[in-house]
């Protein structure tokens, strides 16, 4: 057998391996360009009835979660209960209300409960663009220096919360304590 005749088979084998690995990947999830970078500088107006607004300054000095949500976003409703639980444990959660109508947004929070330490209304979606938001919901974990350490795309379920988001929060908190001590 001539080795050259094996070339097509070998190339195909490599393609097949790539395809097999590819089946497990999520092509629709675009990784954030902001991981390891400082949060963008912004100051959002307060949401109607849910003051006092939210700015980049709020994220300094502690580990916090930033959650991008909107009342028109169906999956946001699914993850909302989890944020209320997390809020009870004392982790600060900031809400970025993305491209929402003021009345709808505040009615939504009034009905489902408000887990957020502070919220800001991004009616035009510009701050969302600065955060690299492209789908709602999205969730970020920010360290005490205001550096984005994790981005989660899509609705957070219990599994994602307990295996990805909360461990990251705890890890960063431990680091901050170690540094302070």
């Amino acid at each position: 057998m001539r080795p050259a005749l094996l070339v097509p088979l070998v190339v195909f084998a490599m393609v097949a391996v790539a395809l097999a690995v590819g089946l497990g990947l999520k092509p629709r999830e675009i990784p954030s360009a902001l991981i390891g970078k400082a949060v963008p500088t912004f100051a959002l107006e307060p949401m109607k009835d849910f003051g006092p607004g939210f700015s980049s300054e709020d994220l300094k000095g502690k580990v916090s979660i930033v959650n991008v949500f909107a009342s028109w976003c169906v999956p946001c409703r699914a993850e909302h209960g989890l944020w209320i639980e997390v809020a009870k444990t004392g982790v600060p959660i900031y809400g970025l209300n993305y491209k929402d109508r003021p009345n709808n947004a505040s009615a939504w929070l009034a009905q489902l409960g408000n887990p957020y330490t502070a919220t800001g209304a991004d009616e035009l979606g510009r701050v969302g663009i600065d955060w690299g938001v492209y789908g709602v919901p999205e969730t970020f974990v920010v360290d005490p220096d205001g550096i984005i350490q994790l981005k989660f795309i899509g609705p957070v379920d219990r599994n994602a919360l307990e295996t990805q988001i909360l461990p990251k929060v705890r890890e960063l908190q431990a680091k901050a304590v170690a540094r302070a001590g």
Partner: protein
Amino acid sequence: MRTALRLSMLALLALLALAPVVYAQGLEPVLPDPALEQRARELHKRLRCLVCQNQSIHESNAELARDLRNVVRERIAAGDTDEDVVTYVVARYGNWVLLQPPLNAGTLVLWLSPPLLLVTAFVGTALYFLRSRRSIPEAKPLSSEEQARVAELLGEERRG
């Protein structure tokens, strides 16, 4: 049957999971200066829409695409160069938004392969010609006997 229903519900949920911002037909006011608008438009064509996949923001109807179109217009109106605008968008969304992948370590293979493939194909073909010429000796001229036989056969064929 129940599983089918549950599966389809799951599929629906999965579809909604990354709810793209509400669809609307994307035509919006343009920059008053046609030259600047033309620059904006060329940039729009280079940037990939994030929620609709495989369209540039120029072609997309998605609301986020419209927002990004307007961001590009604003940056241009503010005096940014084309490269400034691209840098601005890439800083927020990464190289993924560039429809033309930049040449870097990750894309070297992509950009080098087409010319290398072509060269390989030509070299392979040249080798094929050389080998086939070497492996089969030059045909000897036909003997007069053979020529007569050829003429006879050809004649037969023409008649038949």
